[in-house]
């Protein structure tokens, strides 16, 4: 395996996500340069100031709603031009949605699928071609353990992440041979604004802990990483439960 240079130019899609921000801090301390995309300019300014203070060698912000797939190619081209080359693209935005609403109405389900899956497909399609043509780089996407098996309590969100996993598997098989790393990140419960309404049990990890795991997985050129690592075991067990039992469980 070729020795890798640490990513110095980083495109962050959903840069105001707590997990993303924590990851960018680790990279900023090593002097990386950033192109940050998220939908709220005020929040972007705060993230940018923090990364600069921690050692980023440059930060450009770009406010847009990433649901707007028609605007993706122009944004990505501007980002690539601004960074020179993109070493790392980190897709981090997402929505949890509301399972009860998504059960009751297709429109609500479609929103979740559009943000978590379809808009990601649009970005990944462009980025896969970009990285393939560069013959290098890392495409890292935050998915979720929820995509490993459909559960009654959150299968719409789970399906959006499961579809993302399959899509990434295929993309990886296509461009890995071009020298591109495709990393599927599967966090378990993380204490972030997305989960602030849930009771914080002992299974919750801190964003900074997940961030260190993401950076390590990039450095080690991993394909798929569960964070924290024990989720790999939990999900393996969950997948092994026979369907006839699983369908009776209240998970």
């Amino acid at each position, binding site marked *: 395996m070729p020795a890798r240079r640490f990513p110095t130019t980083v495109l962050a899609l959903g840069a105001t996500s707590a997990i993303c921000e924590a990851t960018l801090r680790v990279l900023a301390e090593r002097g990386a340069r950033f192109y940050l995309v998220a939908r709220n300019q005020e929040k972007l300014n705060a993230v940018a*100031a923090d990364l600069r203070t921690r050692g980023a060698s440059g930060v450009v912000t770009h406010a847009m709603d990433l649901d707007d797939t028609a605007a993706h190619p122009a944004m990505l081209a501007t980002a690539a031009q601004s960074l020179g080359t993109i070493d790392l693209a980190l897709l981090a935005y997402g929505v949890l949605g509301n399972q009860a609403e998504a059960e009751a109405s297709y429109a609500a389900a479609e929103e979740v699928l559009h943000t978590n899956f379809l808009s990601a497909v649009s970005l990944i399609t462009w980025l896969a071609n970009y990285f393939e043509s560069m013959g290098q780089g890392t495409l890292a996407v935050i998915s979720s353990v929820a995509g490993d098996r459909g559960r009654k309590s959150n299968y719409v969100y789970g399906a959006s992440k499961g579809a993302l996993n399959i899509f990434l598997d295929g993309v990886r098989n296509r461009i890995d041979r071009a020298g591109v790393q495709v990393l599927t990140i599967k966090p378990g419960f993380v204490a*972030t604004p997305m989960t602030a309404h849930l009771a914080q049990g002992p299974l*919750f990890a801190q964003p900074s802990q997940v961030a260190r795991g993401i950076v390590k997985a990039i450095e080690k050129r991993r394909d798929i990483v569960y964070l924290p690592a024990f989720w790999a075991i939990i999900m393996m067990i969950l997948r092994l439960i026979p369907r006839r039992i699983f369908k009776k469980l209240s998970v």
Partner: protein
Amino acid sequence: MPQKSAGPGFESWGRYPKLDASVVPLNWTSDFPLRPPPATRMLPVGAGRSYGDVCLLGHGTLLRTRGPGLSGGMDRLLDFDPATGILCCEAGATLGEILDFAVPRGFFLPVSPGTKYVTVGGAIANDIHGKNHHVAGTFGRHVPRFELLRSDGTQLICSPAQNANWYAATIGGMGLTGLIAWAEVKLRPIVSRRIRYTGIKFSGVEEFIALSEAHAKSEYTVSWIDCLATGHNFARGIFMAGEHDTVAAPLKRSKPARLSLPFNFPEFVLNRWSVGVFNALYYNKQHTKTKNAIVDYEPFFYPLDKLQHWNRMYGRDGFLQFQCVLPWEAGQPGLLEILKTISSSRLASFLAVLKVFGDAPSPGMMSFPKPGITLALDFPIRREIAFDLLERLAAITLEHKGRMYPAKDATMTAGQFQAFYPQWKKFAAYIDPAFDSAFWQRVTV
């Protein structure tokens, strides 16, 4: 829109009193004012390292500047100028996070309390003091500027020159004047993590005062005192002085703490005998009268931080803190009376600290420190006994023209508070109409 937390309620460090409130995490300074505004009164909170009810509001809404699990939230570092040492950060950043950033760059906090797990907002709102109060004054003296957000949407940049009255009301303002969004903190340079330490055993208050005078030029001084010992051991203790080492050494970042007290101790673990044994062992650990050493700053400043959740040691019911300052004029007899009252109460306390405050004026209208001697210690809650004792200690403090520290209080009466802080009425004019605290309700009834 920030969401309400369904997680466990918010407790202060003393875990007394226990008051229910809804907690709204603020992840961004732009999350405040809340939209829509809550139906209840509000109070900003940081890491909940205050002991009593200054960071609580029963049936209210707590605006928490730290994320769930107390990481993340409003913790961003917004600017740093190595030429001036001025760091600008959001109010939820902790002093520990500032150290992680600053130490490798050759800078250190201007003032450190006994734990690094407090937020900048909390440090300003209680205008905290450290082991260098006699030379550096309070934390607020090193905060050139901050932004105050009011519930009506007003944004006030506050400094000694700009909105000076809001600056003075908010430093030591116990979170009542509005939400501090960000603040500047002036850091000081260091060349090493190390502290040159001197520990000197003393016996009696007079010797403590003599040592404090002899070491008035030492940057950091504090004393541990045995509050249980009687007879010829009465008021024995260890005087500790420290300076930043001036010999350059690697400025690495600290490793995260790993040890944690996972459960509550049953009540009987901490009693007069076990604490007496601890105190005797601690006092006698140092064999010689004077001991010199070079130590890392972590154990010097934050000996208790090594064990996360050490407050669980006091059991589920929690504990009470008492901290007073007695002015020089009346200091010695007052202190003797307080120490005698404590030792004869037979209530166990092993974390007792004695220190001299200097005369650098505090910038806050309601700041606690003033020139004199300060004593801080905690008591397990044992039915009414601890409350009776604290009532007596407060009365002695008042009689000797001292005052008590709201950040460490759960028991002072309205009459006592108003006598300790006669300026409270003037301060009340600056309170945000949508803000309130359990402490403020208690002391202004």
